[in-house]
């Protein structure tokens, strides 16, 4: 009895999860494997269109002969690079119509014309003609002929499906793509963005964890940057930071903080004289990191606040009895309580920042020293139109992420064991 039940249970479970698993598999897991496949191929954006045989039908009457009509099919291969094999053509004729002097590649069978055109090389074009004659002496209907559309089929190589592989893309990724520059930019962006958002998360969580007037309002406001649409926020920032008409620069100049406007998003380096040393600051990258922190610290805030609210009040009361000040309480009670959350946050934010595309794309488009790996995926794939190369870069991203996760779990796992 229980056996049957568990069998039914299993079957139900599979029925229930199958749709979701299928969808996730086809949209998320399959592309990841497909990426590996594409990254070993030389594929451009133009190659991914499947070549199609096409025909445009033109019906013409013949001057001296009202019983006859000329039908011209403008045939062509839609692809400029690939051939189509075994092109088959099929068109329907009205009932009272018969073709005369039919091309030898074609035959007629029950009011249909079938043709076999063989192979079409790339860019193939042909004007194919058929003369039609009325079989019962009635006038031929041009309109009716026009409305019937011919059907064409053919076989072609799909460049994505053949088995020609090459290592070219990966060679290019590592040797011709300023790879280490990309990697270091990505790393700066990810690392400082993550650390910054966690620090501001701790500060704001500590803030909101106290009682003050307007606390719930403050909590909503703090989450605004995170829930707002990235497009709107990025463009607002762009306008704010514009060197000439932007509010920030004009304010700073108005209050005499700076003399010249700063091109915060368009300038790669800013030289700062610091006690006689010239320090070079990556200006655009810093701005993008600040935007990143501004947008994502709310997440850290939310996590840490939830944890802080779960810290037992008695701990603080006991510390107070022992004569601890606010700073000591923070260091000795609050921090140890939130380290676990912080370490999870660090990993999550690190992974997501590593893959962040929209924010940089919208703010700078990857210019002035803000080109990270995800931006490079887009550039390679859609600006330079080299799909294979773009895939190779994204495979590198996945590999780096896996290494990061592995190392991180090893380290964290060890520390957890020691504790």
């Amino acid at each position, binding site marked *: 009895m229980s056996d049957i039940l568990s069998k039914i249970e*299993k079957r139900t479970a599979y029925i229930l999860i199958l749709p979701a698993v299928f969808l996730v598999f086809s949209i998320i897991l399959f592309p990841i494997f497909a990426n590996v496949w*594409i990254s070993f191929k030389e594929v451009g954006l133009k190659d991914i269109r499947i070549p199609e045989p096409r025909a445009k039908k033109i019906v013409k009457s013949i001057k001296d002969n009202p019983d006859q009509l000329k039908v011209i099919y403008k045939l062509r291969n839609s692809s400029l690079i690939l051939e189509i094999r075994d092109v088959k053509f099929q068109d329907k004729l009205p009932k009272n119509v018969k073709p005369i002097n039919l091309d030898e590649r074609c035959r007629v069978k029950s009011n249909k014309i079938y043709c076999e055109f063989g192979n079409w090389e790339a860019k193939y074009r042909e004007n194919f003609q058929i003369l039609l004659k009325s079989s019962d002496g009635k006038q031929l209907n041009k309109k009716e002929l026009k409305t019937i559309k011919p059907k064409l089929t053919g076989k072609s190589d799909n460049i994505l499906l053949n088995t020609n592989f090459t290592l070219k893309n990966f060679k290019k990724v590592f040797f011709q793509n300023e790879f280490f520059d990309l990697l270091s930019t990505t790393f700066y962006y990810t690392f400082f963005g993550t650390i910054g958002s966690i620090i501001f998360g701790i500060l704001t969580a500590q803030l909101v964890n106290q009682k003050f007037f307007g606390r719930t309002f*403050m909590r909503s406001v703090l989450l605004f940057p995170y829930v707002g649409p990235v497009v709107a926020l990025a463009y607002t920032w762009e306008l704010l930071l514009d060197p000439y008409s932007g509010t920030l620069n004009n304010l700073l100049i108005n209050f005499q903080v700076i003399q010249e406007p700063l091109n915060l998003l368009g300038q790669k380096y800013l030289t700062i004289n610091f006690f006689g040393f010239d320090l070079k600051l990556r200006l655009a990258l810093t701005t993008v990191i600040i935007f990143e922190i501004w947008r994502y610290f709310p997440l850290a805030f939310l996590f840490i606040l939830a944890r802080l609210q779960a810290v037992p009040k008695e701990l603080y009361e006991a510390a107070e009895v022992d*004569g601890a000040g606010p700073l000591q309480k923070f260091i000795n009670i609050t921090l140890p309580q939130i380290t676990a959350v912080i370490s999870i946050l660090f990993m999550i934010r690190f992974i997501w920042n590593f893959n962040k595309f929209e924010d940089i794309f919208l703010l700078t488009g990857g210019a002035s020293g803000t080109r990270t790996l995800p931006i490079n995926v887009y550039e390679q794939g859609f600006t330079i139109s080299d*799909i294979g190369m773009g895939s190779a870069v994204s495979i590198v991203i996945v590999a780096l992420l896996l290494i990061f996760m592995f190392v991180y779990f090893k380290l964290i796992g060890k520390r957890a064991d020691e504790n």
Partner: protein
Amino acid sequence: MKTKSLIYYSLISSIFLFSLVSIWKILVTLQGVELKNFNFVIIITLGIAISLLNLIIGEKLNYLIKSTLFALIFTFVDGYIVQAMPIWYNIGIFAILIFFSLKINKYNQKYLASEHSSQIVVFDFLTLFGIVLFSFVILFPFYMMLITSFKTQAALLINPLDFSINFNQDFKELFKSYFVIFDTYNFGRYILISTFVSVGTVIVTLIFAIPAAYAVARLNFFGKNFLSTSILIIYMFPAIVLVIPLYTVFSQLGLRNSVGGLLIVYTATTLPVAIYMLQGYFRSIPKELEEAAIMDKLNWFGIIIKIILPLSIPAISSVALYVFMIAWNEFLFSLMFLDNPNSFTLSRAIQYLSGDAETPRQYLMAGSVVVTIPVLLIFVYFEKYLVSGLTAGSVKG
């Protein structure tokens, strides 16, 4: 009274005062009023003087009288320095000073003599400072977005700091940017598409996620643990990695530029987190209810519809809101898949608009307001649900 506490108290309170006054000055400048200087030294000195006076006077005067006195002194001195300011500027300064004086009222000589007082003072003011500063830094861009959409290109070029709105002009002039984006740039259509995609994603995601989450939460089957761990791992996989293969496949299947294609992708990317959130909630529903239902000869479908669904309305709404928000804000896939203006979502439309350098900025900002307001309204209204959704599913980028 300790000297250290005294110094900390007077310094940090005056810095706090300075930052309040400066923020007020920035806001005033943005109304087109000419104001060139923060007067750092003078305001800090005044702040220190007021905080020390507060200690000296202590409780000899009623705190209201004391605050008013401080505020009046400060307002007059400040008014003398800046001169020729509109009266509402001085009123604002007066209000800030009242607020400040009430805040420092609780510190007296005895308080500053107590243990850790210097630390406590610093923490107190940091909190106040943090509240003011964070609110300002976060709300400022939203404020600018809104105000810019009511200005004209010409006015902004003449004085980029003048963000005052002239309410005397007629309604049509004031909302001109909004009329333009709806009439000329077809934003009505984009709103419909965005709404359709987001709501559609919510519905389809829930249809797929609820049964799956129920199976993961309740039923025993081979590969269950594997499935529940892989849900989260899949969720961590970056969207940018999916873009190229999906683009190629969608091109070949003719799914690009179709709202349906977008809907499928959004559903797949939000499914893992929806399942994760829901199964956590389903586990908390007492099993006895279902056992009773089995006795009543209900099948699994019936159990989900009649027992699980009514009990999990809060969890389902938080998932729904969360998914809606993700779909509404999504940009990367809409950028990749849509290049025909007939099938743009709002985000993609705004990006398209900005691609044309000629587009006046107030149109761009009006578009941004249009795309931002629905999410913010939903967020503020359903905050309780959304926050729990965010915390549970907050791995989303």
